């Protein structure tokens, strides 16, 4: 099984090949299902001028937020960038470029990128600042704008379990953008809580088939909670 064994043993190896100026697609929504150790490795590697595609940019001091500290991110493509004072500061200072993209359009852009669809039409954003400069076309009397897909040099993904062949399943709502990012990276790296033998995952229940995955690593996760809300 050597040819399909995607398991790597170190985070250095997991992110090997990432260089200045690359585009990185990151799974996660808020702090849920984020590849926290892969992000930490990017910080450690000190690569800069990254374009990062992720729904959010973490918070101050955790998640993608840590990449702002040393200004490793040149540009963010995100739907929501609140909850982050350093982000705000860099944005207002003109040190950070931000391309705000509606959440559903962002998800579809990554899926399309992975699926060989270079562009699609959506009603989302028509008539708003998001639609400015984009082609408008009518289908059945409704107006849509043309959105182009996104691919990345790297995709960094947080899974729950993966087998050694890179088949991945996600846990609860930690799925979010992860399977979409996974399809659209030239090199897709998945960190998981548990690595199992091929055959242990039910073939019909795999969220990300191994064909999309280049490297798998087992990590330990803090899983910080952004809004702890409980009932009595």
């Amino acid at each position, binding site marked *: 099984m050597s040819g399909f064994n995607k398991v790597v043993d170190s985070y250095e190896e997991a992110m090997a090949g990432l260089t200045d100026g690359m585009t990185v697609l990151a799974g996660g929504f808020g702090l849920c299902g984020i590849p926290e150790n892969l992000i930490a490795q990017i910080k450690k590697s000190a690569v800069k001028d990254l374009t990062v595609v992720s729904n959010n940019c973490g918070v101050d001091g955790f998640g993608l937020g840590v990449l702002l500290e040393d200004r490793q991110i040149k540009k963010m493509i995100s739907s929501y960038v*609140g909850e982050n004072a350093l982000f705000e500061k860099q944005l207002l200072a003109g040190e950070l470029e931000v391309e705000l993209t509606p959440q559903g359009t962002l998800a579809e852009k990554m899926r399309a990128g992975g699926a060989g669809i270079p562009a699609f039409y959506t009603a989302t954003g028509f008539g708003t600042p998001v639609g400015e400069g984009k082609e408008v076309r009518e289908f059945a009397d409704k107006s849509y704008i043309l959105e182009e897909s996104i691919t990345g040099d790297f995709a960094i993904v947080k899974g729950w379990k993966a087998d050694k062949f890179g088949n991945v399943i996600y846990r609860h709502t930690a799925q979010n953008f992860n399977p979409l990012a996974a399809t659209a990276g030239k090199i897709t790296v998945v960190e998981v809580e548990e690595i199992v033998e091929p055959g242990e995952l039910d073939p019909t229940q795999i969220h990300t088939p191994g064909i999309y995955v280049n490297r798998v690593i087992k990590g330990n996760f803090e899983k910080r909670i952004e809004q702890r809300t409980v009932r009595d």
Partner: protein
Amino acid sequence: MAMSREQIATRVARELKDGYYVNLGIGIPTLVANYVPDDIEVMLQSENGLLGMGPFPTDSEVDADMINAGKQTVTAATGASIFSSAESFAMIRGGHVDLTVLGAFEVDVMGNIASWMIPGKLIKGMGGAMDLVAGADNIIVTMTHASKHGESKLLDRCSLPLTGAGCINKVLTDLAYLEIKDQAFILKERAPGVSVDEIVAKTAGKLIVPDHVPEIEF
């Protein structure tokens, strides 16, 4: 008197039907879940990838992997499904959600809505709001009728950058329930004790007032 947040939520909840799939935005819309009539059931869609949102977890149930679109820890209801963000927005964009309730800064007689950005102040991003307003056929906007400074939020043309164009036709404010049709607001119901004159005075956009405007009863 202007309706409370709870009263607004109660009135919105009367639009719910048994078997509705509903997406509730942050703020007043979230409260709607507390006022679902006893004799019906609805299923809440959370755009991060959860259909069938349950109550907040107990302390021991809290799970970092189980959150809603507001990033709050939640539980899954019986019969829930959990999926990717692409699948979630396929539901939303594809018009499969029966009712969407969300807040706004402004709406106008063209059915435009502005809810995500105030130039010069902080831009946090639109999140899923643009997809929600573009994809849904049945949207209720909830907001105060006027700003703290008394400026109407119901306009002939939104002044802020839009979230969606021509997609809104129902607005519930603290003063009134209005529908948007033929480039005008149509006053359908008024808050208990609120006069038509007050609503007229606080509505900047073209307003059509029918002969009879019933009071909302609680």
